[in-house]
């Protein structure tokens, strides 16, 4: 462990080489974008925490069924789609184009399933009287933060699905190489990562314990 760390340190000196991070520019660019995007999500989550702390009648409306079961299933879908994305990147680097395209499309399918199930939950909440500006259970800001946070995340998933479809098309036609697939994978895993914070903070902290 210590030895390999030293190796990494020793190998990381720039030393006048052409690639200080040993990555291509696409990958470094994506990492920097994800850095700024994670700050966007962090401030959104912090704003939610701020509003919630300063509210005196914040509702805890989520019953185990359907809301928590649904949200846990959404987590499962996103984690599994991340696994297929990892497989796609590995296949792309081994130059197995057909396999990689199938794995990328499976990942996109997971994203579509996520958006559809999540939208169904949104419409269920609309029918129960919770909208971005109204909430019959308590503080109206509950609706604003809930739909704001999950909406921003859903937008990222939707963009990710489009991105993955373009990558699958381009990689299938050999216009893109394995690096493009890897960079799109980074974006997809990040979307997954953000949900790992939204799921506990929005859903699990608002579980209905009376029901």
């Amino acid at each position, binding site marked *: 462990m210590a030895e390999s760390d030293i190796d990494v340190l020793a190998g990381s000196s720039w030393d006048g080489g052409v690639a200080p991070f040993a990555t291509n520019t696409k990958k470094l660019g994506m990492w920097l974008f994800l850095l700024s995007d994670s700050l966007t999500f962090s401030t959104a989550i*912090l704003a939610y925490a*701020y509003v919630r702390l300063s509210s005196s009648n914040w509702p805890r409306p989520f019953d185990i069924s359907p809301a928590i079961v649904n949200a846990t299933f959404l987590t499962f879908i996103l984690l599994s789609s991340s696994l297929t994305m990892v497989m796609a990147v590995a296949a792309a680097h081994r130059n197995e184009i057909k396999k990689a395209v199938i794995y990328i499309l499976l990942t996109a399918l997971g994203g579509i399933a996520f958006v559809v199930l999540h939208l169904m939950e949104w419409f269920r909440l609309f029918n129960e009287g919770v909208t971005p500006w109204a909430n019959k259970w308590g503080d109206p800001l509950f609706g604003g933060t809930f739909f704001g946070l999950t909406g921003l995340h859903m937008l990222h998933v939707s963009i990710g699905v489009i991105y993955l479809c373009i990558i699958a098309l381009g990689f299938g036609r050999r216009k893109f190489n394995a690096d493009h697939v890897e960079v799109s*994978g980074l974006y997809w895993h990040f979307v997954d990562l953000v949900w790992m914070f939204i799921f506990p*903070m929005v859903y699990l902290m608002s579980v209905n314990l009376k029901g």
Partner: protein
Amino acid sequence: MSAHETAAVETHQPGTKKLFMWVWFWLLVLTGVEVLLAYMKLEPRLMLILLIGLSLIKSALIVAYFMHLRFEKIGLFLVVVPTLVFCLTMILIFVFPDSLRIVRMHP
């Protein structure tokens, strides 16, 4: 010099299918633990700390293995992670004391 350059640019893919399956499995287990925790009727502050702790472990697993950062040059890690930690610390320092003050101002 040229040997150094080829070594630096070559992309290698460590991590086997089995490793990724294990990471996926543990992410699911930690998600299950989180859902169980939500029903333990703990004090909100303790629950928030536990949930965020578990989420940080999960995101570290995703970043290290799925996003491959563990196998990259340490320079990339040093560019991304300390920057994020610094920015988040600054945001927390400037936002949260105010929010906690509002809680005490409630009747």
